[in-house]
Each structure stands twice: as C-alpha cells, then as structure tokens.
C-alpha cells in the first residue's frame, strides 16, 4: 500500500462526517434562509427573511445584550485564566497538577449540571443573597433584569470555561526556556516584570487566539441562558436564533439570522488575522 493511499483512507471518516454534518448544513442553511419552511412545501420568499431582521426589535435587544456578554465574558476568562497561571507558575510541580485538576472540574461538569446549582446559589433566598443581606443590601433577583442578569451569567460562564485556558496557557508558559528567566533575574527583574515583559509577549499568539475564541464563544451562549434566564432581557443572539427556529418554528428566518452571524464572525476573524500579521 502506498503512503498516499494510506493517508486518504485515514482521512475518509473525518471527511465523511465533515461533509455530512458541517459542509452540507452550511449549504443548506443558505438555502433555508431564502425560504419559508414548514417541511411540507417550502415557499421561496427571496430576501424577505433578511429584510425582516431589520425591523425585529428583539433581535436588536439580543445583539446589544451580546455586546455586553462579549466584553464581560472575554475579559473575565482572559483575566481569571492568566492570573491563575501567573499564580501557580513559580510553584512546584505538585501545585500545577492540583490546579490543572481542580480548574478542569467545572469544565468537565458541563453547563447543564452546574446550572442546577446556580439556580440555588443565585436564588432569591439563596447563599449569595444571604451574604448580600448580611452586608445590609436588599436581596436581588439576579436573572430578572438585564443589568444584574448579564454580568451574573458572564461570571457563571467564566467560571465554567476558564479551566481549559489555564491548562493550555500553563502548558505554554512551562515550555518557555528557563534560561530566559534566570538571565532576567540576574539582571534584577522582579516576578511582575518577568510576567509583563517576558511571558506575555512570548504568548501573544495564544492570547490572540484565546480572545478570538472567547468573542465567538460569547455569541454561542445558549444553554446557560435557556436553563437559568430564558428572557428577552438576557437573550444572546444565538438564543434568539434558537427561539426563532426551534420554539416558534420559523426555520427560514432563524437561518437568515445565522447567516448574518456567520458573516460577522468571518469579518472578526479577518480583522484579527490582519492585526496579528501587522504586528508580526
């Protein structure tokens, strides 16, 4: 058997699943966006689905909410995961292992399972409100308004996801040549200076990727909103799309919104690539 044939045989399963469940759906979603779908006789409606988005007030609310999610969630994940890495970086290996294990517990527990405890923790009579009451503040119904709901959900999402980035960033930090740090220390650099001027610049690529993935991730939040705060004032764009397609049953209109989101994300990725190319 020739080398090349072996490679193609190995690639068959991946490519088959890609074509069936990513490639075909991507073509299908474009088709759907021009139709009114009821699964019996779909009606071609041209650009009507797209035009409808412009007059959809709930879509704008979701888009605006999502901007806040994007900022809070991306900042949350980046700050928490980086500070965790800096915190344990200089400690002995056994602390790295402990950290890696513990930060991954929320990730592995998944949103559905954790949402069961967030319901309790942020309940009007729950632990957080108990602490708040001790401080002399009135209890807060966290998910009943956008002002408290969006930051709370962003914090929850940060908690659930930052462990992945701790594992990835820590592995990258530990792979940096130790001699660089020794040299810096001989020159009298403090830990803070080493972090700021040596580690961060060396990990620019990973940090850029992390920010991009989190920005995209913030537009993909559905589960947590669905399970904890299924309201218009806490909706994300994808939650709105989910509602439009699967709850109200307007698949065509949902598909048109999905396409707009794709275009937005492709644009974002191109901008990011342009920026990192210019810097390099």
């Amino acid at each position, binding site marked *: 058997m020739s080398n090349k044939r072996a490679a193609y045989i190995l690639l068959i399963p991946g490519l088959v699943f890609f074509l069936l469940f990513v490639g075909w759906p991507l073509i299908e979603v474009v088709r759907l966006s021009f139709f009114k779908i009821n699964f019996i006789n779909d009606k071609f409606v041209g650009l009507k689905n797209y035009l409808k988005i412009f007059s959809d007030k709930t879509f704008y609310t979701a888009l605006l909410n999502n901007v806040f999610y994007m900022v809070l969630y991306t900042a949350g994940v980046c700050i928490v995961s980086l500070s965790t890495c800096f*915190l344990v970086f200089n400690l002995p290996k056994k602390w790295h292992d402990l950290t890696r294990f513990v930060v991954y*517990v*929320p990730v592995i527990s998944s949103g559905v399972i954790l949402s069961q405890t967030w319901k309790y923790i942020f309940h009007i009579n729950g632990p957080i409100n108990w602490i708040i009451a001790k401080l002399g503040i009135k209890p807060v119904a966290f998910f009943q308004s956008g002002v408290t709901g969006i930051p709370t959900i962003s914090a929850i999402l940060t908690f659930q996801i930052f462990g992945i980035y701790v594992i990835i960033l820590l592995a990258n930090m530990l792979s940096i040549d130790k001699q660089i740090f020794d040299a810096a220390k001989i020159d009298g650099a403090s830990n803070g200076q080493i972090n700021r001027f040596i580690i961060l610049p060396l990990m620019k690529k990973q940090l850029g990727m992390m920010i991009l993935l989190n920005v995209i991730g913030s537009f993909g939040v559905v589960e947590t909103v669905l399970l904890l705060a299924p309201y218009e004032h806490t909706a994300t764009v994808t939650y709105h799309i989910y509602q439009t397609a699967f709850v109200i049953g307007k698949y065509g209109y949902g598909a048109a919104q999905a396409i707009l989101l794709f275009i937005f994300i492709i644009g974002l990725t191109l901008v990011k690539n342009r920026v990192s190319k210019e810097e390099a």
Partner: protein
Amino acid sequence: MIRKITVLMLVVILLLPLWLMIIGSFQDINGVMKMPPDLLPKDPTLKNYTAILGSADIRWFFNSAFIVILSIVLSVGISCSAGYAMAHFDFKFKKLIWILLLSQIMIPIITLYIPRYVVIKHLGISGTIWGAVFPCVLSPMGIYLAKIYFETIPDSIMESARLDGASEIRILRSIVVPISKPIITALALFGGVGSLSNYIWQMLVLQKTARQPLLVGLMKAVNNFSDPIMRLNPLGRCMAVGSFLLFPIIIIFAFTSRYFTEGISGAIKE
C-alpha cells in the same frame, strides 16, 4: 506562602458550588432553604433521588450508555485517524483539508443545528439515537490535539519499521497506539463527557420518551412544575438531577485525569 494559600482558596471556590449541590440534593425543603447552608447535611434524606428516579424510565439508562459508547468510539476513531494522517503523511490539498476539518471551531454550534436538523431528516435518522450522535462526533479540538500529539512520535521509528516491511496497519497497531494511551484517554474523556452533556441537540432530536437519554428525560421531568412531586422541593430535586448526572463524569475524570493532562500538556509542550 501567600501564593499557596491563594491557590487553596481558588480550589475551595471552584469546588464549593458542586459541593453545595451535592449537599443540597440530600436535603428536604427546610434544609435547602436554611441560611447559611450546612456544609455537611444534618439529617440527610434520599427523597429527592427517589422522586427523580421514580419519574425515570429504565430505557433512559440504556439510551445514555449507548450514546456515550457510540460517541466515544466514533470521536476517538475520527480524531485519531485524521490527526495521524495530518501528522505523518504528505498529500495533495493537505492544508485545505486541515482548514476544513477545523472550520467548525469558528461557528457557534447552535447556528448549525437548524440546517443539521433538516439534514438528518433527509438522511432518515431524525428522532433516532443515530441522529443525536452522528452530527456531534467530529471534534476539531480532538483532531487538533491528536495531530500535535502524534507529531511527537519521530518519523524515523516508523521509517525503520517500514524498511523492515511492516504495513501501515501494523505500524499503527504496534508502535503508534501503545505510546498514544494518554491522548486516546483524553479524547475518549472529551467524547464521552461531551455526549453526556450535549443537552440542546439531544433534546431537539430525541422527542420520544422511549428514546431519550437520562440527561434529557430527567431535565424534562424536573422542569415540569405541574408535577406535585417535583413542586414539593424544586431546588432539591434540581440539585439531585445535577448530582446524579455529575456522578459518572467525576468517576471517569478521577480515573483518567492523569492521562488527560499528560495528553494535552504533552501535546502542547512539544
């Protein structure tokens, strides 16, 4: 010293919500609503568990087991074979295929659910476990990790095996697989846990009670507020569902975490 204490505080903060959930699941309504919450249950009760399991269908257990096994086999198989091909072979359109396989990571997955729902209808697997599993087993992260892990195996070993007349299958079986245990375990963990928590897609596809997995069935039961048994202690019941679903995940994770971090960190360091 301060660093170590901060790390320990972080550990407590990260585990506290899960601990509160597990404790809460063993308490009646008065225990759940008591503030501050007890850190160990005073008089534990199994009522939440009997209530949720009383509403469970025995078939849900089998459905869940089947979904998990099928997902692990398919996702590990796809990630390893594609990752291996990418790491050790040269062929036409390599870069293009690589981009295609990873492209999914850039797409919010929920937007793919709408057309996928139509696609599985066309394929005739709508409403079946196949329809719930197949669209979700291609994992860009898995392929990526497999590729960078396999790249750490030096080409020279394989070259000499080839010169000795070993077939590609033979090389795979006696050289690659044995030293790839960490990454295979990590990918199996990803695939298994992913399928255990893939709530929205499974809920959309598996509408019939008989075909639902535990995740979908129990979530539906516990959110049915007209059910008097659930209404007695809604938060306690919810936390019991969470703890019950968490149990297998934590068990698997505790046994595989060593391989798991080895698999990921090993892949990244090289």
